[in-house]
């Protein structure tokens, strides 16, 4: 019975991490749009390449933030949550 409970905890943590990383879609689309527009701008005005590139990198880094929040959640779910939850379960059983 205990093995089953621990298995459910670990499995659900892995599933949750996978679902959390669905958030990676958003930054992907957003950064793709940003780079496409930057390419258009450079094509139209090649002399402004430096300014456009640095602004684009800046914007990409900001757009990436939501994806990185998801990454942090996924990493917490994989590396931290299983130990924590199993300890909570064992503590509850001991009481």
């Amino acid at each position, binding site marked *: 019975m205990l093995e089953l409970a621990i298995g459910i905890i670990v499995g659900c943590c892995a599933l949750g991490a996978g679902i959390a990383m669905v958030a990676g879609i958003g930054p992907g689309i957003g950064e793709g749009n940003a780079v496409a527009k930057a390419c258009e701008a450079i094509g139209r005005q090649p002399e402004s390449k430096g300014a456009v590139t640095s602004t684009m*990198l800046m914007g990409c*880094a900001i757009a*990436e933030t939501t994806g*990185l*929040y998801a*990454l942090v959640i996924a*990493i917490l779910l994989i*590396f931290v949550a299983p130990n924590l939850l199993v300890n909570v379960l064992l503590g509850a059983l001991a009481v």
Partner: protein
Amino acid sequence: MDKKKSRNFKVIDMLLLCLAALPIIIVMVLKILTEPASEGISLTGARIFFTVKMPLQDMYITEAQINSWAVILAIFFLCLYFTHGLSQKANTKRQIALEWIIEKTEGLVNGNMGTAFAGFATFIAAIIGLSAFSSLLSLLGLFPPTSDINITSGWALMVFILITYYKLKCGPLGYVKSFAEPVAFLAPLNVISEVATPVSMAFRHYGNILSGVVISVLLGAGLKGLSSTVLGWLPGALGEIPFLQVGIPAILSIYFDVFSGCLQAYIFAMLTMMYVSSAFNIDEFERRKLKKQQKRLNNYINSED
């Protein structure tokens, strides 16, 4: 001007270079001595070297802290090396390189923050240098301090203190009032967005570097397994050669370690400049200063009478 440098000068040069390399070598030796032997994928956080007893919570001295101290020491001695033997005319390669760095950072700060923050060039250069060198430590196989959230949180907290300091320069009342804009009932949201600034800065830097580390470890383990399945039928030690691990991880390392590390250093510095310069309302500050001077003058005139 004599072209020949004295022997003393060269000896000090070599000494400074050795001192710059020494902390990194010490950290590498420390890693080799303390790393436990592991099989397969080993993806751990920073190892704890020792614990200092503290009243509220124990303080852990971890690999991340030791590595960042080593980076700080290395940059310190590198700076001493670069500034050694400065002359009024830039006639050595190192002085020309140094002047290029200083000109670039001053141009960056003046372009992004305005001339009111001219003194910030050293701070921004320090942030870029520390962050970039910390991320580049992973090229040597060491634990990059920026992939530990505690380190980046510390930096972000520093930036948050700077932002608050510059907001408070226009008076504590104005600072409290700025939360009630544009409407008073939005104050809780404004407080949240104020707190979210350092959190997102810390998570952005940490997440970017950590994702590179995780992908590198996974790729290394995957290539090892793949090469052992390809060559597994060969007898003895021949079947255990991880030939796929040669070269392929280096291509990803150029992106994740070199490009991403330097880009994140640049972005952290850019965000610092933007947040700090937008926190300071220079017109309001000048107006308050003028008002204060006027008041003091009036008091002086009154006391003279």
